[in-house]
């Protein structure tokens, strides 16, 4: 097990009238190489949860383990943990600050103590892996488009060579193609380099398409945790939590109600298409 949360609770403003239990006895294990989607409404505890995964927040109760070691143990090196578990915040482009793209991405590795030559090598590889072309390396990051800036910011975390990449809504505010490009590159990092991905998203469609496991956070607890098809079959409960299933899942349910024996758990366009075509070709209509 790569990351493990054991009975973790986190309480904001403890012992005051504003006391809020943001995480409530959470148990969770993340295996190496998984692609996980986290969904939950604003204020459900998602951000608190992911900040526990790289030790930015310390649990009020319970334990966080990385590769079996308690990260809050006395001799544990948190700095190394934060290199291994990279966290890309919302709107990460707001954290760009250097005069050119390459130097910005080199900042992390240099800070870690790598030689300038090694840092540059890492930065170049990271930028290319998220699709930032060489011709932009000497540009000021502030002259790039929104989607490009965001990729540079992600490269900044990738240059640290993390084993786990946690991204908090990496596509917010991007146009549809920009969204597909970023998610496509994240998928590539997962498939080709085996990086474990934790993707926080408000788009049910995106997590259905990209994640192999979905964790639902609600009221600081985890009511559902499983494959997208399985999680979205609870769409009625998800609605009470301010969430929903992808639009496609609803179409499939309505078709089933009208007598089509389609797969109601289809959650992507491709799955729905296949199921409907199979049904039409088989001539089995309205059973």
């Amino acid at each position, binding site marked *: 097990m790569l990351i493990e949360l054991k009975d973790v609770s986190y309480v904001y403003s403890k012992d005051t009238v504003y006391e809020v239990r943001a995480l409530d006895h959470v148990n969770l294990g993340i295996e190496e190489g998984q692609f996980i989607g986290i969904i939950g409404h*604003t204020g459900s505890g998602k951000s608190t949860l992911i900040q526990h995964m790289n030790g930015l927040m310390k649990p009020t109760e319970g334990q966080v383990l990385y590769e079996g070691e308690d990260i809050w143990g006395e001799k544990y090196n948190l700095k190394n943990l934060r290199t291994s578990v990279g966290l890309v915040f919302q709107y990460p482009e707001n954290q760009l600050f250097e005069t050119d793209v390459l130097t910005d991405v080199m900042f992390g590795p240099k800070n870690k103590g790598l030689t300038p030559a090694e840092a540059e090598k890492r930065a170049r590889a990271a930028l290319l892996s998220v699709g930032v072309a060489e011709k932009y390396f000497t540009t000021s990051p502030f002259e790039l488009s929104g989607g490009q800036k965001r990729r540079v910011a992600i490269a900044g975390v990738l240059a640290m060579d993390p084993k786990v990449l946690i991204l908090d809504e990496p596509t917010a505010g991007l146009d549809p193609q920009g969204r597909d490009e970023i998610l496509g590159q994240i998928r590539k990092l997962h498939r080709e380099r085996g990086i474990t991905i934790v993707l926080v998203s408000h788009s049910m469609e995106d997590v259905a398409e990209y994640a192999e496991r979905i964790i639902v956070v609600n009221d600081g607890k985890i009511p559902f945790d499983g494959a997208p098809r399985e999680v979205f079959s609870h769409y009625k409960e998800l609605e009470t939590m301010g969430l929903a299933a992808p639009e496609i899942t609803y179409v499939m349910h309505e078709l089933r109600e009208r007598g089509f024996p389609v797969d109601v758990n289809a959650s992507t366009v491709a799955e729905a298409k296949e199921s409907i075509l199979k049904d039409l070709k088989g001539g089995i209509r309205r059973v």
Partner: protein
Amino acid sequence: MGIIKAAKLAFDYIKYGDDDREAEKVRALDNVDLDVEKGQFIAILGHNGSGKSTLAKHINALLIPSEGTMWVDGIDTKSEEEIWHVRQKAGMVFQNPDNQIIGTVVEEDVGFGPENIGVPTQEIWRRVEDALTRVGMIAHRSKSPNKLSGGQKQRVAIAGVVAMRPECIILDEPTAMLDPDGRRDVIETVRELNEKEGVTAILITHYMEEVIFADRVIVMDGGRVVMQGTPREIFSRVEELKKLRLDVPQVTELAWELKKAGVPLADGILTREELVEALCSLN
């Protein structure tokens, strides 16, 4: 003339060099003509950098055209003495709720605009109450805005615009940072203002599902208007939209994929009810 009209509108962003001289000009809007009737619901689509926000900022005179003219309710936005009139008529809601709330209490924030233009105190209270009722936030009137969710904050921002009694409300990606529930509440609030109060609405968004109710969809690319029509007309052109870095609603995409595979379906199916009906009537 409609409530919003633009003729041959062009705008250049100017970059200055170290010596304060003009170093570079970037044309963000180019030859845009626009005519919006009072009471319409208009959606603007376009990829990042296509000129949507630049156009929106012209409607309430945050930007003044480099060439051409923008009229709001007949007023030329170039005339400096009328600028406050223009801004009262056309209110703007931005993407990030935390960047546009200034009050420490919800009702104080909503009253800020009217107070600023010298509305009498009694009238301010009436407007605040009315505006918060309309966006469904009256129960939260004495709360601190930082105790609200993103969607609630956006509705407070909309109330702030409504309290100015505008003719038209411009929303620049108001749902980009919200969860599904917040997104739905904000869009419903805007649709209600449009349908019940006749407030003209201009919605900029990257969520294709949010525009299927619009009277008209405008698609921008490279600072120009490249497509215009009803949602059905626009979303029938799936391949063209994809070339413009855009998308279609998921239901439209499924219908389009099925059609490509030989299922006889119409172009531009927008809602799941339409798709279910169309598939059921194949028998």
